[in-house]
């Protein structure tokens, strides 16, 4: 009779994907934002690729961070406003698992496309093609961590009017280590140096967030729904 936890997760993922298909614009917008922000820097700094090359890793990563922050608005707010989150909290199923499933699906819809788009933007900023795997790899690990930390911030600020600025103020300081290791990994790759160190640390941070994040999310959500 009772659905198992895996079935519950599948149900959540299925619902999110179905909703995403019907809200395609919300999925594409962060991507467009990512491209637009990345094109600002050549305009602001200089058209010469040689100059852009040494700031390219930082630019791509900062743009990815801001795009992930932008997409957080649509993570929990619609569910809290239409009451479905309340039903999740009262379903008797572990809310941490439900929110984790929702955040992972959100990452699949916003983080992964970002990872696939980043190499093109990197090349546009003069990064050699040899850097693509490290760029995609570090962004894959990094955007997942950003999604979880962002989800905690989103859960904390979902009940706050005009909470998006507050969300950025809460989440960006927590995400700075991800930026440091992510941008550094790509920078090392462009100089052909070993990138194992920062990538391992990115993976370690992701595991830490996967382990502790969901409990912070569910506690924060229960407070926000009071």
């Amino acid at each position, binding site marked *: *009779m*009772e*659905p198992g936890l895996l*079935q*519950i997760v599948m*149900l959540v993922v*299925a*619902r999110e994907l*179905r*909703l995403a298909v*019907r*809200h395609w614009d919300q999925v594409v917008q962060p991507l467009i934002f990512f491209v637009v922000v990345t094109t600002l820097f050549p305009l602001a700094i200089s058209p010469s690729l040689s100059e852009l090359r040494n700031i390219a890793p930082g630019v791509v990563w900062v743009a990815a961070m801001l795009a992930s922050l932008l997409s957080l608005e649509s993570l929990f707010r619609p569910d809290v406003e*239409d*009451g*479905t989150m*309340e*039903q*999740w*909290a*009262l*379903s*008797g*199923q*572990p809310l941490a698992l439900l929110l984790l499933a929702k955040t992972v699906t959100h990452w699949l819809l916003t983080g992964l496309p970002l990872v696939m788009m980043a190499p093109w933007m990197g090349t546009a900023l003069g990064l050699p093609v040899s850097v693509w795997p490290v760029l995609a790899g570090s962004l894959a690990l990094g955007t997942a961590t950003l999604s979880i930390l962002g989800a905690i911030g989103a859960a904390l600020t979902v009940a706050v009017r005009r909470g998006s600025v507050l969300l950025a103020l809460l989440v960006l300081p927590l995400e700075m280590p991800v930026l440091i290791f992510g941008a550094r990994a790509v920078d090392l790759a462009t100089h052909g140096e070993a990138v194992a160190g920062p990538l391992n640390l990115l993976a370690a941070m992701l595991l830490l967030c996967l382990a502790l994040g969901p409990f912070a999310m569910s506690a924060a959500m229960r407070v926000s*729904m*009071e």
Partner: protein
Amino acid sequence: MVTLAEVSHSLSTTAGLEVRGLHLWRGERHLLRAVSFALQPGELLQVVGPNGAGKTSLLRCVAGLIEAESGEIQWQGAALRTNRDAFHRQLAYLGHINALKAELTALENLRYSVGMRRQVSLEQTQATLARLQIAHCADLPARSLSAGQKRRVALARVILSGASLWILDEPITNLDVDGIACVESCLAEHLQGGGSILTAAHQPLLEHHPQSRSLRLH
């Protein structure tokens, strides 16, 4: 103040829901003052009182959405705080808002919300929708339904959840006359099946039902 005389009950309290000395503040206002009541299987308790008396807060508090400042809520003898998930598996809560996704159809909404709790066949879902006279809305997106139809889809979720305790906040808002009659028959059927109902509404529900009582909040 609620005097115990108003809410007398003799049966043992281990089977149902027991609330003792519930206090709740909203900002500076002392909303719930030592609210106490018991709800046995097969009983309906309707919370009545003027607007702003704290009916919704009481229901959300009992459901576990709000933490009371002090007081004790027990479900089947155990404190709510210790076995919250088990309590929630036995609870179906209907709030002011209908908890429906506008983009999903009525059937999809029910599949994703009831599916969290138990396997429900398509026929069972369609039968419940037919019972609530909205069988024709099954495949329409919730966005295009009227307020009354949305309320019936939310009530269908409560019925399909198979929970023994129903907490319904203004269940019959936006419903027309035969909608109310239909809901009252569902409530009576649930009571007959040994379920219990805690509800807040302005007009009395199942007034002449033997197991129906009321709790006045000031």
